[in-house]
């Protein structure tokens, strides 16, 4: 082998759980991702295990996502959602009887959905346990990320807050996966040196930054993004490879734009009679995605053409072959120039594969199979595997950076969302004040203290400023930030006065039920 390739998928969704509503629009984020990304990914992993495909994958599962995937309320709701989808597919099989192209697609959806239901049931609806099984079998390296996916450099370098975000994630990873995480996904690849002491405390050994975060390191890294560096704190830093990223994303070279692939937006939830699709919509009062989409990207401005599954899978196979050949050529070229085997690190948001790029799981499947059987230039490994093979690296300090727009923090800090941060900073300092004041509180105060910590963490999620910036659901994002901060401030006042409203506290605990064993001492 001349080099290595590390494929990293980062799976994350913010904590959205609304027991107070029978059906809640934003819960569909989870349901869509389960149907289109997480379950198909498990099916792909099963296929690799069945067929003896070697090669390891890295999967980042955020603590908020793990919490939702193991939550009985959301599991029950997902089952209901999946049942509804299958029912809709059955209706579609009948309805499209005289529309032959759609009729075949309706059958395809029915087949896929019932297959997904089988997978769901095989794991008893617990996808965290399912992924753990593959980690335990040595096919995956699962890593964690900040507890609520906070953009760490924007937390004001408030040490207790950074520590709480990192160690809370570590603690819950232990509970879910029965071991310590070795890698840590920096939310949005956002790096600042202030986080390192706490990564070190958590015995994290590696993380990833965007290419410029490593290339602008001090001193300059000899091998660019093709080998990790050690920070002075002893953490290995891998850089995202621009070329392999570009081939998936670029407007010139990006695969998901192929005209044969399924169109993301065109959904029968918008196309068909409202009364007909209404029972299957994420919110009964608004048109929305059902997940049944009948058109391919097509191109041009004319009418969309029906999706043809076979042609789309052919495209995925071609793209996987192209991606493989490109990696082989890239690694061969690098190997000639380096005195050590290069490593190409290619991280992607997991939801790219399946949810947005419908054929993404098949692309992954084809690529990994081809990499396992059709070449011997590189090995598919995880960053931790690489560090175990190669323990000597240059020392350098990465540069503050992110993988967001323009490479820094402007997506999460701009005119649409800047108002959040003064409140976050006030809350995190008050949380530290509480943690220092109440060292061994009585049970009710302890519960209030833990809930206050949960509310601070939930308010810090990077998803809220992101959504405020992108405008996909700004009312909801704004409301979430305010809800958590107001709940925190209420708890803060009640704790200060030592007069906790037990009834209200119970309501809040049931609503924001995350991190049951949260350790408030991290904020002290």
């Amino acid at each position, binding site marked *: 082998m001349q080099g290595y390739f590390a494929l990293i998928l980062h799976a994350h969704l913010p904590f959205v759980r609304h027991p107070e509503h029978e059906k809640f629009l934003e819960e569909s984020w989870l349901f869509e991702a389960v149907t289109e990304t997480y379950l198909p990914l498990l099916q792909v992993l099963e296929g690799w295990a069945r067929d003896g495909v070697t090669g390891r994958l890295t999967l980042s599962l955020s603590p908020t996502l793990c919490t939702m995937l193991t939550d009985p309320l959301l599991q029950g709701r997902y089952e209901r959602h999946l049942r509804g989808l299958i029912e809709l597919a059955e209706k579609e099989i*009948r*309805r499209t009887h*005289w529309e032959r192209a759609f009729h075949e697609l309706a059958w395809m959806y029915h087949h896929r959905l019932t297959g997904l239901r089988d997978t769901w049931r095989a794991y008893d609806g617990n996808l965290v346990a399912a992924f753990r099984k593959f980690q335990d079998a040595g096919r995956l390296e699962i890593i964690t990320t900040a507890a609520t996916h906070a953009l760490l450099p924007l937390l*004001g370098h408030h040490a207790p807050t950074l520590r709480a975000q990192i160690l809370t994630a570590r603690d819950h990873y232990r509970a879910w996966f029965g071991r310590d995480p070795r890698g840590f996904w920096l939310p949005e690849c956002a790096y600042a040196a202030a986080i390192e002491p706490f990564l070190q405390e958590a*015995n994290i*050994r590696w993380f990833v930054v965007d290419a*410029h975060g490593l*290339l*602008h390191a001090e001193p300059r890294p000899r*091998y660019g*993004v093709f080998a990790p560096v050690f920070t002075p704190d*002893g953490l290995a830093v891998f850089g995202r490879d621009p*070329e392999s990223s*570009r081939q998936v*994303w670029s407007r*010139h*070279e990006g*695969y*998901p*734009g192929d*005209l*044969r692939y399924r169109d*993301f*937006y*065109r959904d029968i939830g*918008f196309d068909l*009679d409202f009364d007909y699709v209404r029972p299957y919509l*994420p*919110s009964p009062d*608004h048109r929305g*995605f059902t997940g049944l989409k009948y058109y391919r*990207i*097509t191109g041009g401005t004319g009418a969309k053409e029906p999706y043809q599954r076979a042609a789309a899978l052919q495209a995925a196979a071609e793209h996987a072959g192209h991606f493989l050949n490109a990696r082989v050529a890239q690694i061969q*070229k690098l190997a000639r120039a*380096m005195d*050590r085997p290069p490593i190409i690190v290619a991280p992607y948001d997991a*939801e790219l594969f399946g949810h947005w790029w419908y054929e993404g799981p098949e692309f992954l499947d084809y690529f990994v199979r081809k990499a396992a059987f059709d070449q011997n230039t590189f090995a598919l490994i995880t960053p931790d595997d690489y560090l175990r093979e190669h*323990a*000597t*690296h240059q020392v350098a300090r990465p540069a503050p950076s992110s993988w*967001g727009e*323009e*490479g820094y*923090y*402007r*997506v999460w800090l*701009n005119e649409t969302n800047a108002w959040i941060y*003064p409140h976050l*900073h*006030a809350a995190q300092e008050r949380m530290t004040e509480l943690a220092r004041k109440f060292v061994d509180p009585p049970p009710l105060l302890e519960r209030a203290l833990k809930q206050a910590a949960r509310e601070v963490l939930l308010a810090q999620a990077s998803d809220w400023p*992101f959504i*405020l*910036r992108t*405008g*996909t*659901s700004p*009312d909801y994002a704004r*409301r979430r930030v*305010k809800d958590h901060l*107001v709940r925190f401030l209420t708890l803060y006042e009640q704790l200060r006065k030592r007069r906790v409203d037990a009834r209200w506290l119970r309501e809040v605990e049931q609503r924001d039920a995350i991190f049951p064993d949260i350790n408030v001492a991290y904020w002290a």
Partner: protein
Amino acid sequence: MKARKTSTSSSRTSGQTRKTAKTAARPRTRARKVRATRAAAAETPETPPPAETAASPSPKPKRAARTKKTAATETQSAAPASVEPAPASPKKRSASTRATSKRTSPATPPTPEPPAPASAEPAPEPKRPRVRRTAAAATTSASGEAPAPKPSTRKPRAPRVPKLPPILFEPDEPAPPPVSGPGEKFALGPTPPESRAELSEPELPEAYGTKRLSLTPCDPHRLYAWWDLTTEQQARFNRASADGHLVLRIFSGAASGSPALEIHLHPESRFWFVRVEEANAPYTAELGYYRRAAGGARRWTRVAVSATAHTPPETISTEAALEFVTLPAEVPLPEIRALAGRPGREARPITALAGELRRSGHPLFQPAAPPGPTPWTPERQRALEELVVQTAGRPTAPGSIEIGERVRPGAERGAPVVGPAVEQPGPLPASPAGALWNVSSPAGGEAPLARGFWLNVNAELIVYGATEPGASVSVGGQPVKLRPDGTFSCRFALPDGQYELPIVATSPDRAETRAALLRFSRATTARGEVGAQPGDPNLKPPTPRNA
């Protein structure tokens, strides 16, 4: 939006993208109306109304005040914008502002600004923010500088201004968001959902009154400064200020000597985005005001000073020192401290301790021989640097949130792009040109015509009936599930064509049968372009044989 750009010289002002809580909920049609109105007033340089406060109890600026301020700035010429003004609250925002920058000689100590034309009590009308770029950072042209106001003891006459419709001051919607595929995990449809009234919002405190000033780098040339003052505190400082408002100073390095920038703030601003010159450089902010001293002088009073913030680097470092260490993956990092005889939170970096262990001969910390085929040479170094440099610079690789303009539906899409321009290892096999801008599709319809009017028509057929509960029914040869009361219904897409649909019911005891044969025909004629979905001409009628 474009109207603003006509008079703005360089950097974008915050009003161009700012959106706040309240405006986000507004229907898009209104925003378009605002833009249209602005376009009509394109020759009028705009200036923001004073920022409004977050919490409702505080007094809000009146429309009249906004209009006056706008008029005041109409007399200003365009100037390089080095700051980006910020709104005071999440719910409302100020419109765009162009800052005035002013250079001073490097040797000149910070001279007090001439006294403001208005007296400090009551606070004068909100003024346009001024930025004074002092020598430390003023290296760019300052053409178009606005002259500083001259000292005057006379109360100025209220400027006569044309009345502008209040809608001009309403916020814009932000620029189309650069969301990409994974960012679309938050998509709830091709367009954001309508505002939901049931999401009544709790209110946060407007501020906490800590008087803290915070400075955060957003990127190599932009800092975010915010200060925590209650409305009362801020009003008190404004009253004490000779200018009627606070001033933000930005220093290169520590807060001493001459500031690199001096920004006169809106009286109600609570944060500010500041453009700075240098990447990879320390900056410190200071908040304060000038108060009037004896003899007409002005004396600086500090309110708060921030911690020093460091802007990120934007280039590859020139520092090429090489230090390699070995950190065995199987040894936990805290144990390395113990092995080095320095347990606990000792200040020395782990890598330094690993170096000590290597020098002391510890076997785990000895470097492995480079596994490459040949040793490191200058030729290799040059070859590798060429490859490394190819990956440098931003944006080299679109992030998870960057290709939105290529995937957003409808009119927000950018220009068409070419298909895969594959550099290596060869063209994609038989792959049709993929243009990401075509990934999206407007909701539920074909592409609109030039004028935007369009029509899609389709038809469905609903067959319904009832029989004895427990009976068996087939429609088109397929069994149908009866409801408990024996009713049933089926829905069919009905493209153009002629169809027959047999319906057969069998009694629960299988002794009797009833059947019906329904015949349907659909033929569509259209005038103008009408979206239609004609059926497959080869499609056979849904008889049981064909079903």
